């Protein structure tokens, strides 16, 4: 056995493995830097821009502000924002009227039927501005950031296929499948829930 030979083989193998690993981690860092970091406080100008919902005259649907796309729709894709939305849902008492999402005094949010359309901006508008027949406006109670987080969450709850970022169950009583299992797909109703006729947009 030539000592030189043993040695070279000896160093080369672990080094190759190490280099390979470092390269992988390096690529990942580059990808990672592209990602939206978890933000605890949003920049005030961005928040102001996010508040600029462009709604149709009926107030039903509309387009999100430009900055929403520039941010790459964070409120629909970031697990952190979605789970914050989930907490806001209980903190601000949404469950008092909408229950675990299946409705109560207010309409169900996961039967697949949206009175004002399924877009996140419509949901954000409902939360911010309120709706006729009892939905209060939360404009003065929550920040814009929070309104969007909550809207993003409500959309996940009613989505038919679960996104990877969707939150999981709470440490509570188990009343329906958690958002990461697409409850709306399981609980979809062929007919809109029998709702008091005075609900929905004014005709």
């Amino acid at each position, binding site marked *: *056995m030539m*000592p030189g030979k*043993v*040695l070279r*083989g*000896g*160093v080369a*193998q*672990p*080094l190759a*493995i*190490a280099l390979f*690993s470092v390269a*992988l*981690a*390096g690529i*990942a*860092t580059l*990808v*990672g830097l592209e*990602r939206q*970091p*978890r933000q*605890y406080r949003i920049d005030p100008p961005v928040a102001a821009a996010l508040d600029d919902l462009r709604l149709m005259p009926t107030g039903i649907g509309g387009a999100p502000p430009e900055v929403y796309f520039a941010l790459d729709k964070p409120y629909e894709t970031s*697990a*952190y924002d*979605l*789970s*914050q939305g989930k907490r806001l849902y209980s903190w601000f008492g949404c469950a008092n009227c909408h229950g675990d999402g299946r409705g109560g005094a207010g309409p169900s949010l996961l039967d697949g039927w949206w009175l004002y359309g399924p877009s996140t901006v419509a949901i954000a508008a409902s939360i911010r501005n309120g709706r006729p027949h009892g939905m209060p406006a939360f404009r003065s109670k929550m920040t814009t950031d929070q309104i969007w987080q909550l809207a993003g969450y409500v959309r996940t709850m009613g989505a038919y296929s679960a996104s*990877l*970022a969707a*939150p*999981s*169950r*709470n*440490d*509570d*009583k*188990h009343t329906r*499948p*958690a958002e*990461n*299992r697409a409850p709306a797909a399981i609980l979809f109703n062929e007919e809109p829930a029998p709702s008091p006729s005075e609900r929905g947009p004014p005709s």
Partner: protein
Amino acid sequence: MIEDRKRPPLTDDGLDDSVLERHLSQTWSASPGFWGALATVDHKVIARRYIVTAFVFLILGGLLAVAMRIQLAWPEARFLDPDRYNQIFTTHGSTMMFLFAVPVMEAMAIYLVPLMVGTRNIAFPRLNAFSYWIILIGGLLLWISFALDAAPDVGWFAYVPLSGPEYGPGKRADIWAQMITFTELSALAVAVEIVVTVFKQRAPGMSLDRIPLLVWSMLVMAFIVIMAMPAIMFASSTLILDRLVETQFYNPAEGGDALLWQHVFWFFGHPEVYIIFLPAAGMVSTIVATFSRRPIFGYLPLVMAFIATGILAFGLWVHHMFVVGLPRLGESFFTASSMAIAVPAGIQIFCWLATLWLGRPVFTTPLLFVIGFIVTFVIGGLTGVMVASVPFDAQVHDTYFVVAHFHYVLVGGAVFPLLGAIYYWFPKMTGRMMSETLGRWAFGLIFLGFNLTFFPMHILGLQGMPRRVYTYQPELPWAGLNLFISLSALVLVSGFVIFFIDALRSWRSGKPAGPDPWSAGTLEWATASPPPAYNFRRIPVVEAREPLWSRSEGLAVTKGLQVDRRELIVSSVVEALPEARESSPRDSIWPFWAAIATSLMLIGSIFTPWAVVWGSIPIAVTLIGWFWPKGTVEDTS
């Protein structure tokens, strides 16, 4: 194949040394090239990979520690944001515990145990290869997620409900849980190999009372792994089930129990400390004996202390949970048992001191690290006895006092002996000596830097600074000490830098070592450095505890092993009487593919439960490849 069987097997009977060596290296060497390297099952090659990988993780974890120390150097620093800080302390802790400390100790066992018991390869060598790929991929999983800004942020013990479905959004905690699964899988594999190697493959004559202390410590460590790892396997799997498929193990509202997490975690977590410490104790025993130039004082008490530590290790876990509000009697019991473990630890310390006292110690670098270990570990042990008492612990729990305590036992109790062991066995592993001068510098800087960094943390803790905070206010009286600690950490880091420079330099151009540079007594020094693929030309016969010291004219050896296939001796558990000749598995690429398939399944399961179903198909395929009968005679005789 059929022809082969007819030809009488070629044994080492009467072959002369050079012919024998040629045959053996043909039979045992890995085939050259890339695929040969992936397929090798040589315990030495795999152990070397393991060690280098573990040290790379030590460096990465160390860089994170530096980042934390920069952030904490002055009040309200803006170097890291809170979210990053959370990821960093979690990744630092998890890397150090699961990807550095445990694997590096196992790696030393993989390298040393077969050599020290005088056999040609570890038991289940393919499983060994598999275990390496698994831990490598598990480590990559954690670090790639860190680079992606998606690393776990729930602390290295990931308490629920913080890590549970409600408070741990995203995939971060899932990545932590699956990283744990990878490391426990590989640790269990290695533990089984060690137990079987020690019990069944010892050289003839190495009865239980002649087993080197390092091997004893590795054996006890392996048993602890086998008994502790299932607990963490349960914990990580149930956590991920709770998070991904809505089971309710840790949900009190549905009859689950959040405290259950702490019990199962620490039922593993406390013994883990001994998984790290016992191998270190074995290293210390070896180094002390060699450099005191005499057999170890108190072999039997030391073995008993190892075993007692291994058993007691399972009766202490609740001391991590003193402040959650447990029944008084429980707290008293675990206080008592935590203090009791100081008894076997004390026995070990006294045996080592006695050996030094009675011998003629030569203060080389390995021995210096051992002395550093004794000092540091005793301090860590003393603060351990302090936090074992409930009223004291209630004061300092989750403060920097605890951070200081566990770094004293982990760095003092494991890293110091490990660095000593690297200086000691480096010549065996590479055939070259490390530098004595640089070694002394490395030791001095690390010892000084370590104490200057971590001792003041005790005081910070008593002053109330909590652990896991990303910053503190200028009004609090902590700024001065924190700056001092951060500066001292630079001394510590410079010591490590010198160590790594020394290791790399010596690996390429160190002084050639020869087979036995320290005139040591155990069997690994009876073969060339680095050892050939087959370890020993002829399997030695052991007649004493330090076989190389008791005989001057060379070891007695066995004969009759076949050389045209991989063959080793199976011996009896107690007296190591030779029982059979057993074939040892050949190289195979399948463990590598099996590890890839397993990893795909485990990582995929973070994203969809269906990965478990579909992922089991490639695993089955690779396992079939792995165990496919080759039609060669595998019988024993």
